[in-house]
């Protein structure tokens, strides 16, 4: 299943780049795998009803899109909010269906409808692998990342954008205060301090 999920992600990323449907060659390049392997995966996806073939090119089906989304969301959920613990893994199995996860966000993590919607949107439009995402708090001093989206209520998300943390912005961590204290970052030539809670809701793609 893992490989198949990567395939679905690759198809979505290509879609967002305007490549739809995509040829096996494009998929292979996106996934950095061999053409044969890509063809095998695409075939498997078609059998499972997650992708459809049109003239030798492939596109996601609505089921495939949902499967990809569930995968992305559970990765964010497990990695950011439950870690890779046994309970985290169990909860992922329990919450395969999207609406269940929505309820879980609201009940267990205190997210409101707006925040959940923001998360959906952020993940739907994500280019690249969801596994590459990390909260800003996980960067070490000196580390850089690109803002992908922010999770939070209307006020927080808007405030962050106003202070320059809009999607696509590069940030660098300057230092971190101890005891889960704030994180000092450089963004758009300005030094900002973000409280730990705020920073943990800013999702970035770390740059190496």
């Amino acid at each position: 299943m893992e490989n198949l999920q990567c395939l679905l992600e690759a198809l979505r990323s290509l879609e967002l780049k305007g490549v739809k449907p995509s040829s096996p060659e494009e998929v292979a390049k996106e996934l950095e795998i061999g053409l044969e392997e890509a063809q095998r995966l695409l075939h498997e996806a078609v059998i499972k009803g997650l992708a459809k073939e049109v003239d030798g090119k492939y596109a996601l089906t609505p089921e495939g899109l949902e499967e990809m989304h569930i995968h992305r969301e559970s990765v964010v959920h497990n990695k950011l909010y439950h870690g890779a613990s046994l309970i985290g893994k169990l909860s992922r199995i329990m919450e395969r269906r999207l609406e269940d996860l929505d309820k879980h966000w609201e009940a267990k993590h205190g997210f409101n409808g707006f925040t959940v919607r923001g998360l959906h949107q952020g993940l739907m439009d994500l280019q690249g692998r969801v596994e590459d995402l990390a909260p800003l708090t996980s960067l070490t001093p000196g580390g850089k990342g690109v803002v992908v989206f922010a999770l939070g209520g209307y006020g927080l998300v808007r405030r962050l954008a106003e202070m320059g943390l809009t999607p696509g912005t590069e940030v660098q961590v300057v230092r971190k205060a101890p005891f889960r204290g704030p994180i000092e970052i450089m963004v758009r030539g300005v030094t900002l301090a973000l409280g730990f809670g705020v920073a943990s809701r800013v999702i970035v793609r770390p740059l190496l």
Partner: protein
Amino acid sequence: MKGTVAEKLTLALAGNSNVGKSALFNQLTGLRQNVGNWPGTTVEKVEGTLYFEGLKIKVIDLPGVYSLSAFSADEKVAREYIASGEADVVINVVDATALERNLYLTLQLMELEAPMVMALNQVDAATRKGIEINVEMLSKELGFPIVATVAITGMGVKDLLSTALRIAKQGVRPPQPRYGKEVEERIVRLIEVLEAKADKLKLNYPKTWVALKLLERDEEIVARLSSTAEGKEIVALAERLAEELELIHGEPSPVVIASERYSIAARIAKACVQLKPRPEIPWGDKLDAVLVHRVLGYPIMIGVLVATFALIFTVGDLLVEVLEGFFENYAVPEASSFLLSLLPAEAVDLVVNGVIMGIAAGTTIILPYIIPFYLVLSILEDSGYLPRAAFLTDALMHKVGLHGRAIVPMVLGFGCNVPAVMASRVLETDRERLIAGLLIVLVPCAARTVVILGLVGRFIGIHVALAIYLLDLAVIVLLGRLAFKVLPGEAVGLIMEMPPYRLPSIKSVVNKTLVRTWSFMFIAFPLIVGGSVAIEAFKLMGLLDAFVAASKPFMEGFLGLPAICAVPIVFGILRKELTLIMLTEVAGTTNLSTVLTPQQMIVFTVIVMLYIPCIATIAALIHEYGVKKAILMTALYIVLALTMGALTNLFLNLVLS
């Protein structure tokens, strides 16, 4: 000179925090300043005047903001004022070292369609950082004049004034920023309906701006429009359009629009800024490596806070002694002997104990601490250390529902609640200010420490005094958490700029101190004198005995205290240490252990510690939060104190029996 000036002009300074706006303001107006509050708010309004080329020019220093959304009272005040059109020219003060971020506000000011001039400030600091800005090109890109300034030295200020004058005469407005196609299309659609129904809506804002704010779902504009049926339709349309934008971009609409503004700002900044390699690590970075170091930062901060504390209270105590000496040895006896020759004895009591002692209380409590406090606060503010202390203590302050910026007010509270309440101004949103205010008043100030140590500490033991201190801290933590949950509004965590360090200018610090002290005295003095007269009148009319009799069932039944204890509690409103003095007076002995049992002492101390803040603190609460909230808070403390007193009594009854 005043008489000859016929023409008048109003300039408003708008800009981010920490860009040198106040320095420019001081440079423009000197000491001709006025500080008050914006009507209906507790946001500081600073006004000044100057004379230039035969014109009398009024300058308004708008609060420093990063955006013109409805996030904080500061932002609302700033945008209301600019939209009102009262200012002939808006001077946008911009920090040349952070052009891109500053341009975000510039674009929003342009949206408001007021005539504009930019003061590109701190160009010297920018040069030192290796940032070269092409002013001419920037002005061409934005479409309005720009003057390079260094506000601290006054460089460019004259040029700025004459440019502003020229713009005021011509009345030219800056061009509108052009956003992306998807946004522009929706703005046009909204403007169409806004124009069609303009006469019914009565909005005094530019329509493009209203359209943008509607797309951003600005709470205030949406609420205003929703009050009419036509407006409601427009809001519904705007909501649909905002949702379309969200579908296209996959981000909440305010983020979409913020991104658009930032992409314009980034493009302009990139075109106009040339970066040169910096010769060495700037001294500010070196300083930060020590001052906010994960380990070293903390002892340094404690040192700074202790020094602040020590400075305020040694200077304060010294002044208190001098002033008290003056009042006790000179003013009061002189005044009474003089008045006795004119008035009956009771009236003299009212004047001397009420008015003069009230003035004495004001002058001896407030002035000695307030002035050094404001001096130190201004220095901490201007130097840039305050945000560093907030950075270090944010994690700790979260435990009581606040964030790091509240550390200074909370610590100051241990000395005197009055400056502490006033320092809660450093917090951004009304919600945070209110939580901070609620908690600060419970911080045991020096006067309450005197009571705790002088009564419980002396007659029972220091360990019990400490226990009472801990009880107080527990109440603070609990109330903080409760307020955090209960108070309306979204809790936005710490998002704070760490401005570069600056050497505070003496002129600015002194100026701020004078102006702020004056504005506080204006509120506090009438209240203190009035309260003092009221209590004295209460006593003279013989109501005190009636009050004692009336409170007897409660005092004895619930609190287990002798009824006579009601008297010191009433006088404690004037100043808390009076409770101890009055207690010895009504008891007729300084050995209080002969009058009160240890249990009674504990209950009494708990009540004194928690009930109504002293009258000066109430004045500060009114100053910062308005009359209504101050009364509500005071009522809350009374209920809290009596409840805690009764509970303590009950608990001790159980434990001791």
